[in-house]
């Protein structure tokens, strides 16, 4: 979060903080952190129980000098599912 703030010349904010779309670079950088990746793991490893869901956006805010992260989770649109499958297929083919 500190890196993102330095890169974007922003500061940590109290609630309502700053919201990043999961498709943005900042959102994906947050998604790759140890704290946030656990949420992604839960969603993609438990599709049978939770149905197909994904993180839509992340709100980062500060409280008592501690970073808080709020994740918004939504149902995955079937069209988006097909789209990502094509992308993943490209990746698999190119990886052979």
């Amino acid at each position: 979060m500190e890196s993102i703030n330095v890169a974007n010349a922003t500061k940590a904010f109290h609630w309502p903080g700053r919201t990043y779309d999961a498709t943005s670079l900042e959102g994906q950088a947050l998604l790759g952190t140890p704290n946030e990746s656990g949420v992604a793991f839960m969603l993609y490893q438990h599709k049978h129980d939770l149905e197909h869901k994904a993180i839509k956006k992340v709100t980062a805010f500060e409280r008592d000098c501690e970073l808080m992260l709020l994740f918004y989770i939504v149902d995955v649109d079937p069209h988006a599912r097909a789209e990502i499958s094509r992308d993943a297929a490209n990746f698999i083919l190119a990886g052979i």
Partner: protein
Amino acid sequence: MLFTHSETAPLVYPRCSWLLPGASKQTPHSSQSTTTKTNLRALYAMLATSAPAAQMGTFRERLEACLGNYKVKELEKALIRGQKLHQLMFANDQMAAQMSIPPRRTIASAFRHEEAILANGYNGAAAECEDPELLGILSDILRQDSVDLSIFGGTYSIEHELLMPAHEVGSDYYPEATAKFSQVINPIGGIIIACQNMSPAGANREAERPLRHGFSSKAATRFHCIKPAIRAAP
């Protein structure tokens, strides 16, 4: 602390591209060095708003000057990992399994039932987690976000505490490792609060000890764990 909040509105997902315009047409996993370069471009693009184009080549150096080389590398690693996780979330199970390295039949977690948890070292002792102050804070936050939620109704808490005592394997000494996970769940409101997510690596960092072991399958069987306690709030 982490909060998750579910929404019912469907997400319209833009075409997922690992590569920014002008970047190499390599796929993300074809080579680690290409991936790093690609994400460096992405990182530089993110920085473009804060510096003139003529200085694009020096972004990494400038970022390093502010954050240090270690943190820039951490940011790059987080970007690579975040992009992969983002794809995994949107892919179906079969496709996500193919994307894993090595490819698998399914990406679904093996920890779906209590038996699986018990088979990995949980000893059955119960623990409880209560943090009314935290619940109050969350309730206030969600009200500000116009979320109609009765956080105190139907709320469950769950806590895992893991401790692996110091031990020796052959000539190797392994210091004590601890981990603590504490979550509060409100299924009706669609809320999960991760009050505490202290992994063994994190606990060792906090104690300024080098991590000598993690959650390998062998080590996990020797962990003395507290069974998760599920408690309905009044």
